[in-house]
């Protein structure tokens, strides 16, 4: 079935209403429309997860899990918050749980043993957090920022979201978003290591 345009009496509708209408159609059984949500919010979800410190090698799998969880719980989405805000909560919680699991996971094999066998350990496979950013100096400086600055900065610059969109998604006051981005940028400038700059 092809996706129909969502209109109300032939007029363009409020994006929030459109979002809710889309979700209701998916809940009712038009599950193929979920692809629109994946397309629209995929980058955002991945950026939220990566900005929380999840290793780049794990980000895509976790983003996939976030979308499956969101699909299963979509019946509970009542449009009281924006869809991005709802997804943000799921993504942030998934990242937090993942990091807790990683921290608890016992080191079952020693690096020496793995080296003898000619295998890579998980530590060697996973790039250090922050390597999802191309510029190494920027990545290192970003990692030194607190999460409350890192996530808004990533969403503003990498996902090109507006202050208003970030405020709605993170349920953060608009002025706080502005302040955190400004302070984050100042802190970033301080942490940038000129020796590591590849410009």
């Amino acid at each position: 079935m092809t996706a129909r345009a969502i209109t109300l009496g032939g007029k363009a509708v409020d994006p929030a209403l459109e979002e809710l209408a889309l979700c209701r159609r998916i809940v009712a059984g038009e599950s193929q429309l979920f692809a629109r949500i994946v397309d629209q919010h995929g980058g955002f979800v991945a950026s939220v997860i990566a900005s929380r410190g999840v290793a780049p090698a794990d980000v895509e799998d976790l983003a996939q899990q976030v979308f499956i969880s969101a699909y299963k719980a979509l019946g509970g989405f009542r449009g009281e918050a924006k869809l991005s805000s709802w997804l943000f909560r799921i993504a942030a919680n998934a990242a937090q749980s993942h990091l807790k699991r990683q921290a608890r996971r016992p080191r079952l094999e020693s690096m020496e043993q793995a080296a003898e066998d000619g295998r890579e350990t998980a530590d060697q496979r996973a790039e250090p957090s922050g390597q999802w950013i191309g510029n190494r100096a920027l990545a290192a400086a970003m990692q030194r920022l607190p999460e409350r600055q890192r996530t808004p900065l990533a969403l503003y610059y990498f996902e090109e979201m507006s202050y208003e969109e970030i405020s709605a998604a993170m349920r953060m006051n608009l002025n706080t978003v502005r302040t955190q981005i400004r302070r984050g940028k100042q802190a970033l400038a301080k942490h940038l290591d000129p020796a590591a700059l590849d410009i």
Partner: protein
Amino acid sequence: MGVENYNREELAERLLRAERGFALSPDFRRRVMAQVAKLPPPALIPPPRRLSPGLLCGGLAGLLALGGGALLLLPGGGMLDGLALELAARNLSLSWGSSSVSLDLLTAAALGAGLALLGGFSAAASRLRLISG
């Protein structure tokens, strides 16, 4: 190119603007939709079951009763011989050897209600934090 020519904040801004978001693989949507295709419509998926505080307390009480019964039935069940339980009009006294605990029943009821409320709030809060529409 020397970095000393740049204002550090301008440089940070320039570097940030040069980056793009996390690059998802081209088949990311296909992989998500392949999993979605295996699932029923969300309307038919029951909400995740959570252990209610009442059920939790019931389970705990059942486990205690089972444990107590097992201790009585075991050959070494004599360890309970020294346990004296006394239920007065408004007091519950429990003594074992030289140790004894006495609890006012009203206090016990208030404590139980408080714990149940706390459990209920925690369960509701964790659910709201995970998925809030």
